[in-house]
């Protein structure tokens, strides 16, 4: 409708700009987490993630070598070496010898510290401390430096969280646990709901309308109600806390939406196909598996995505029905909540853990978005 009469070009520009702003606002938070997960702990604490592309600047207090490393040269006593004591690509932009004036000297300058000697610091951290008398004491001189580090991105965080088996906070086990929860908890309700939806859509039996109304009503029952009675039940029948229990719980909670979506879709399938098959002598089971299921693929796919996202992202059901005292079966969401509690300030760990848990649903989302939207429009909301 953009070419319609009465649409002003000025307004079109305003629309473009506001959409850009809106998209930026919605992407900004996730982007922050994504960028942070590739930075080192030092970089995260020294600058905001939006400055990740710029060189970072931080102040530090370093020491020269101790007096026992001094050598005598041309009648003078000399200590030299590198302040960073190791390979680094950081550069010193200014330095000083007292806390009160940390930016007193530029790289290459020489500071005269009276009877403590004369110190020269280079940009790369090399220093020369020269004195006419012997250095005494046990520790080296303190040097306050302002360090510039170039932008740097690393995969180390992901290596630590995913590939390091000794890291007890790692996400590998939680990742597999989540998969173990999610795959059956997505497939089982689909199978059950597909059969039930077929029966509700195409089979004649007493009480059908009542069942459909019940399913619609159960759509909105909050699952919080189910926690205590079902936990007691699970403990009583011996399922306890474990995968079986959490699959059953997710199946029960996902079923109303699944039946509702699938029934709405199946009712819309052409009646002729089913009647023809019946005339040809097919049983309901054959009709269902050979005709209805393949035809219902879009609806099945859209529910599968819903259920996948919901079980993958779930915290409450897993905490109540799955995770026991040993913590062997912890899922990613719970692992992250625990990290939030214990490592609240360690953003390199938190960001990486969160992004590991986000990346799979995001991939599924972008790959199958079409079906997700179709599902939203077809059934859950009219």
């Amino acid at each position, binding site marked *: 409708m953009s070419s319609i009469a009465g649409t002003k070009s000025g307004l079109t520009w305003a629309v473009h700009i506001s959409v850009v702003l809106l998209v930026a606002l919605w992407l900004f938070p996730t982007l922050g987490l994504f960028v942070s997960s590739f930075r080192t702990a030092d970089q995260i604490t020294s600058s905001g993630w939006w400055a990740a592309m710029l060189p970072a600047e931080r102040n530090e207090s370093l020491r020269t070598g101790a007096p026992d490393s001094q050598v005598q040269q041309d009648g003078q006593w000399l200590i030299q070496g590198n302040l960073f004591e190791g390979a680094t690509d950081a550069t010193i932009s200014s330095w000083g010898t007292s806390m009160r004036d940390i930016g007193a000297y530029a790289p290459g300058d020489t500071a005269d510290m009276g009877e403590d000697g004369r110190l020269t610091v280079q940009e790369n951290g090399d220093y020369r401390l020269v004195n006419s008398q012997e250095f005494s004491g046990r520790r080296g001189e303190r040097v306050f430096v302002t360090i510039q580090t170039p932008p740097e991105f690393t995969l180390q965080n992901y290596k630590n969280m995913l590939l390091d088996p000794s890291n007890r906070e790692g996400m590998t086990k939680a990742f597999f646990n989540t998969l173990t929860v999610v795959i059956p908890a997505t497939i089982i309700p689909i199978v059950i709901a597909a059969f039930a939806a077929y029966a509700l859509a195409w089979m004649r039996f007493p009480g059908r309308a009542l069942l*459909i109304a019940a399913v619609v009503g159960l759509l909105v029952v909050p699952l919080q109600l189910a926690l205590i009675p079902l936990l007691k039940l699970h403990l009583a029948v011996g399922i306890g806390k474990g995968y079986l229990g959490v699959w059953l719980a997710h199946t*029960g909670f996902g079923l109303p939406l699944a039946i509702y979506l699938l029934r709405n879709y199946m009712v819309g399938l052409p009646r002729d196909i089913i009647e023809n098959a019946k005339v040809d002598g097919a049983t309901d089971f054959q009709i*269902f598996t050979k005709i209805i299921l393949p035809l219902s693929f879009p609806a099945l796919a859209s529910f599968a995505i819903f259920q996948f996202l919901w079980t993958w992202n779930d915290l409450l059901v897993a905490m109540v029905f799955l995770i026991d005292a040993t913590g062997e079966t912890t899922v990613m969401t719970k692992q992250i909540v625990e990290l939030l509690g214990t490592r609240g300030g360690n953003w390199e760990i938190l960001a990486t853990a969160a992004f590991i848990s986000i990346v799979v649903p995001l991939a599924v989302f972008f790959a199958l978005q079409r079906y997700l939207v179709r599902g939203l429009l077809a059934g859950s909301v009219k």
Partner: protein
Amino acid sequence: MNPALQGLITIIIGVGGCIGYFYFSNQILDKVLFPPQGKDAGRNINRANMIRPWLFLFPAIFALGLYLGYPVIETLRLSLTDRSAGGAFVGLANYSQMASEPKFWEAMRNNMLWLIVVPAIATAFGLLAAQLTDRISWGNVAKSFIFMPMAISFVGAAVIFKLIYDTRAANQEQIGVLNALWLAFDGGAGSFIVLRLLPAVILLGFAALMAYIIYLLVTAMLPKGAGRSTGTWWSVPLRLIIVLAAAWMIWLSLKSAVSVFTATLPYGEPQTWLTIPFYNNFFLMAVLIWIQTGFAMVILSASLRGIPEETIEAAILDGANPFQIFFKIKVPQIMGTIVVVWTTITLVVLKIFDIVFAMTNGQWETQVLANYMYDKLFRASDWGVGSASAIVIMLLVMPILVWNVYNARKEMR
């Protein structure tokens, strides 16, 4: 055992068991119980067809009954008993104990705030995004980015926003965006416009919107000559409730608009956003709004596309400007969808637990009902009060449940 292998085995057993049930039960019905051959072939087919629906439905009915039906009744029963007294019947004691706890009323107040603010803002943003992206060439790309947070877990979103709200000491570099922005304000003209004028304008705009809704509802209730029905019997009380709620919101927003101007703001000091009482609720709500806007946008954008173009063309010919077209032609036509989106988000809000649990765990006056319930059930092990608060959530959902069933039945006829 390798966790991957272990997971794979459990998956195969779980899914295999489920598919096996349907396959073998139908095989038994057709091959063993009522085979469609022999002298009773016709009768057997009929018999099998009587049983088959229940064979198909049994797992679903069983799971629904066990996981959603039974708990409603059992929770109601538990809310009337006392666990420490061996499950004795105590009547409404749990409810009165709950009502005497300030934490419960705090949760109720916050929940009401959530129920008003989140659906309202998410729907409004969704509508705005739907309208804006509908007209432009790269609208679909923009939509999928705004829709994307739907895929992110509440816990993941909590981490994302914790980074935004992060606070560090005044002499250090701020790594939370909000504080970095906040420190840019110093009380000058920019601060006045952004921190006082802008919020006040938004609040006044919201008040005006509420006034408009009241106006619409009141004029709809007034009799308009003969032959025009005013709707079913419950529409008048429902409208009165909405009018009262809207009036309350006008009062709230006017009060807040005044306080925006009079408050003294601590410029230059980094704020610990999540610990500021009352306002921290809004910082938590931002997370859910961020997630739910995409959902509202997708639904509303589809219904905007469904508006017949003739009505819009007619309006353009009559000289309506884009704003008039939007507010007077489009919005009234998709009112039904707006209500549905609003209710769906309301349902999400009622069950919201993860965000509060992960971000503040109900400290600093941010408790909500679902988290309060979790606290009672699993920290205090007080099943009576916990069940009572679950029943409160159920009662809040009840009108939506009735409305859903009513609509579904109307549609099926």
